[in-house]
Structures are given as structure tokens and as C-alpha cells.
């Protein structure tokens, strides 16, 4: 998993819960990296999983909700670091529908070895979109957070429903309806 996911995550934890919480979850996790992350490095996904689980047990917030909040924070990272990418779109549905064919292509130019989830578009109208999320990481709520922020970015909102196709969350259907 790319280092930027770790550094931004720990920054957010520090922001919301203080440096003590960062220290606690890092010390309680068995980390090969010993918690020393740099945005340009690559680390095991299991490290993220441990950090999330420890944070969840200390804060009593579910992992899904943590991921949702983190994703909303992460969108601002995208906004400030890659404004050009967002500027190529003027509609949230269009942007989400092109995750696979455009956004992930751009991501791979910067991070050639990135392991990305797939988003297969099943149905698309001007105001609705159905996509199937597939990833062994089961980070669908991270996706959900990014989607919420995407609508916000374009000054609109949407009802987004998640249907788990697989119980472990590695395959999830996103049903997105843009609010008129």
C-alpha cells in the first residue's frame, strides 16, 4: 500500500485524537516499518489494518466509519495536490464513471506499482450510476467517503447505497442517485 495513505492517515489521527493516540496505535501494532512512513514508500496492507483496528478499539468508532472520515479527509489531499485532474470534469457522475479508465490510469503514471481496486460501471444515466467495487482490501467505505466528497466538490449531493455482494466486503455494489 502506498505510503501517502499511511502518512495522511496518521496526520489525521494526530489532528483528531492527538499525538498520544498516534503513539498508542503505532506501539500496539506489530509494524515492520516501525511506524516510520514516507509518502513515496510502499508498505504492507496488514500494517494499515492493524492501525485501523487499534484506532477503532480505542475510539469505539467502527472501521467503516473511520475509513469514511479518512476518505473525506483524503479527498482534500487530492484537491490540493492534483487540482488539474479534477478540473478535467464538470460533473460528479462523469468523474466517478471514469475512475477505471481515466483516474486510475493517471494514478499508475505516478505510482506504477499501485494496487488499485476496480470499479466496473453497470448502469449509467445523467443522474445515476451503478458500479461494482472489487478489492481484496474491502475498503468500500473509503470509496464511499471519496464519492461523497466528489459530489460536494461539484456543489451537489447524492444518495449512495451500498449492497454487499460478498459478505467480507471484497465485492460491493454502489448505487448512486444524484439529488436533483
Amino acid at each position: 500500500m502506498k505510503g501517502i495513505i499511511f502518512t495522511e492517515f496518521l496526520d489525521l489521527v494526530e489532528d483528531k485524537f492527538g499525538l498520544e493516540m498516534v503513539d498508542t496505535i503505532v506501539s500496539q501494532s506489530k509494524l515492520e516499518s516501525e511506524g516510520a512512513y514516507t509518502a513515496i514508500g510502499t508498505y504492507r496492507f496488514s500494517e494499515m489494518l492493524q492501525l485501523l483496528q487499534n484506532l477503532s478499539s480505542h475510539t469505539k468508532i467502527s472501521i467503516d466509519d473511520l475509513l469514511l472520515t479518512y476518505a473525506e479527509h483524503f479527498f482534500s489531499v487530492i484537491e490540493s495536490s492534483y487540482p488539474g485532474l479534477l478540473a478535467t470534469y464538470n460533473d460528479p457522475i462523469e468523474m466517478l464513471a471514469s475512475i477505471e479508465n481515466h483516474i486510475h490510469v493517471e494514478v499508475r503514471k505516478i505510482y506504477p506499482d499501485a494496487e488499485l481496486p476496480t470499479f466496473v460501471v453497470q448502469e449509467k444515466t445523467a443522474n445515476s450510476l451503478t458500479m461494482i467495487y472489487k478489492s481484496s482490501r474491502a475498503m468500500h467505505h473509503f470509496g464511499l467517503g471519496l464519492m461523497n466528497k466528489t459530489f460536494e466538490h461539484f456543489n451537489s449531493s447524492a444518495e449512495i447505497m451500498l449492497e454487499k455482494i460478498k459478505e467480507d466486503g471484497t465485492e460491493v455494489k454502489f448505487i448512486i442517485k444524484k439529488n436533483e
Partner: protein
Amino acid sequence: MSQEKIDILQRALKREKAARKAAEKILEDKSKELYVLSEELKVSNAKLEASVNEKSSQLEGVFKNINDAYVVIDITGNVIKMNNVAIDFFGYDIAQENFNIVRLIYFKDAEYAFTSFKTLLKEGAFANYTARIITKQKEIKWVQINASLIYDENEKPIAAQGIVRDITALKNLENQKEKILKELEKSNNELYEYAHIVSHDLKSPLRSIDALISWIKMDNEGKLDEPTLQNLTLIEGTLETMEKLISNILEYSSAGSEINETKYVYLDQIMDDVSRLLFVPEHISIKVLKKLPVVKGDSTKFQQLFQNLVSNAIKFNNKDQGIIEIDFVEEPSFYQFSVSDNGIGIEKKFHDRIFKIFHSLNKSKESTGIGLSIVKKIVDLYEGTIWLESEPGEGTTFFFTIKK
């Protein structure tokens, strides 16, 4: 600050340092990787440049060494590149003046030139455009041009290149040849007509002599002695031979004329006609061994051919039962015919001579020595050959071939 807080901060600091070092290491590795990559790129760039240089110098060589005029024009016809051959040939030099190829167009071929240029733009190329041009020195030259469009990287035509060959000399030769052929045809026709007139003019005094002799015989009936009568008969015979000779010469002179008609000739029919036309004595039988083929050509000539051979076979037969057989074999590119008889035969030493005009081996009034030369002439006309096999006293077989 509590000790606990200090410890937390120290641990955080330690992590930050470790992260910084890791980042520095990653960046070092990356820059090393980039350095290696850029070195590789430099090498392959140098290779590419060398190969481009090599190709351009090859092209430059072709451009200079080609024996034909080579020009490159823009889409409006302005010449933007030309080799020395082109400068010498057209008389224009783009180093000295602007030169649009429209200036080369000879007014009589203008329409053809513009249609061809349209073809070039539409199809991307044209080949063997043959027309006249007018050079700066106002000379009219015949040229043959092959041209094609040059495209930019977006497949848009930006120029055209053409190789212009000077075919003036060739064209002149062609014209000369045509003229000579026409003259030849004319003089052939004149000769044929001349032969006609001459034969007519020659025959009429013969007829007069013949008439005069019969008058002498009538006027002096009972008065002439036997030797005189015999001499008069000999004169009549000679006159007949003379007339036949003249007719045959005329036939011979027309035998070699070109094959005007190329129709299907049914040789079976021709042989029927020949048997009917000739006087075939009762003791001689003519056998056609198998159905003769259909060939292409002039039926009159084929009739002459068979008539001459068969009439020779009849004439020179001394057997009680004369047999004449006509046969053929088919080969991939020609037919080989044979006319054989059981007549007097021809000695080996005369085999070549008999085809020459006026070489009759037997001095008789029926034989003028022209028949076989007509046969030879016709066989030559159909790109065939003629030869014979013969046993004196036993018979003769003539073979000849006719190209399919």
C-alpha cells in the same frame, strides 16, 4: 512537560527521522535509476541519429545519381527540390528563379496533364504518364512521369515527388517506325498492283499469238506438213506453260502478303474444296486419315497450301494405284501436318532446292517451279517450318508445321 509526553515526542521524532531517511534512500535509488535510464536513452538516441543520417545520405545519393529528372513540388505545383538532371533537362533552376511545373505543360496535352494531376491528388500516385512538355528553351520533349504524394505525420498530403524520364528519342524512333511501316505497306500494295497489271499485259500478247496460230492453222488447213503442225502444237503448249507461269508468279507475289484475315479455318472443308478443284485421275485416291483441325488464319492461303502439295503428289505419281495420305499430329504450340504419296520420289540432293522459285525438277508444261515456293512462303507466314522425307521411286512425304 511530563516524562510520558517527552517519550511520546521522542518516539514520534524517531519515526520522522527514520521516515526521512527511508524517503532519502528511495529518492537516491530513483535518481540512480533515472540516471541509468537517461544514459540508455542517450545511447539509443545516438544510434537513431546515426541511422537517420545514413538513410538521408542514401536518399541524397539516389537523388543525385539517378539518371532521370527528379522533382519535388508543393501542392500548388511549385518546385521545391530538383536534381541536376532536372535542371539540365527543363532549363529551369529553382536556385535562380521560381519554377512552377505548370510552365512545362504543352498546350496540346494540357487537359491530360490536369486530369493526371487530379488523379495524383485523389489516388496518391500515378504511373507512366506520357505526354509532351515544353522546356525553357522552347523545345518540345516527350516524357514519361511516375509520381506520388508525400504526406506529413497526420497523413495530410504536403508535397508530391516525381521521376521524369526523357523518352523523346524513343518516341521519335517509334514515329519513324510507324512511318516506315506505312510506306512499306503502300509500296507492297503498289507492287502487288504492278504485278497484276504486268501479268495482264504479258498475257494479252500471249493470247494474241495463240489466236494468230489458230488462224494460221485454220487458213492453211491441209496445206501444212506434219513437222510444221507438230511445231505449231509445241508453240501452243509453250504458250500455255507461259501463261500458267505468269499466273503462278502473281499468286506467289500475293502469298507472302500479311495475314489480313484471321478467321477460323475448317481444314476439313478446305481439303474437300481442294479435292473438288483438282483433277484427280481415277487411279489416284486421296485419304484424309483423321478429321483435320480448325486453325486460325486466311482460308485462301490454306487452300493454296494444300492445293499445291496435293497437286504435286498427283502430278508426280507413276504408280498404277496412286495413294495420297493427309495426316497431322497436335503439339502444344503447333500442328504438324503431313502429305505423303507413293510417287516418283525426290533425290536427297534436291531437297533444299525444290523450295526455291523456278526450280522445277521436271521440265513439263504442268510444272512451273513455283508451287513449292508458294507453299514455303505460306508456311513461313504462319511461323512454321517445312521439310520432306523421300525415297526415289517409292514416294515422298512433306511435313509442315503451323503455329497455333
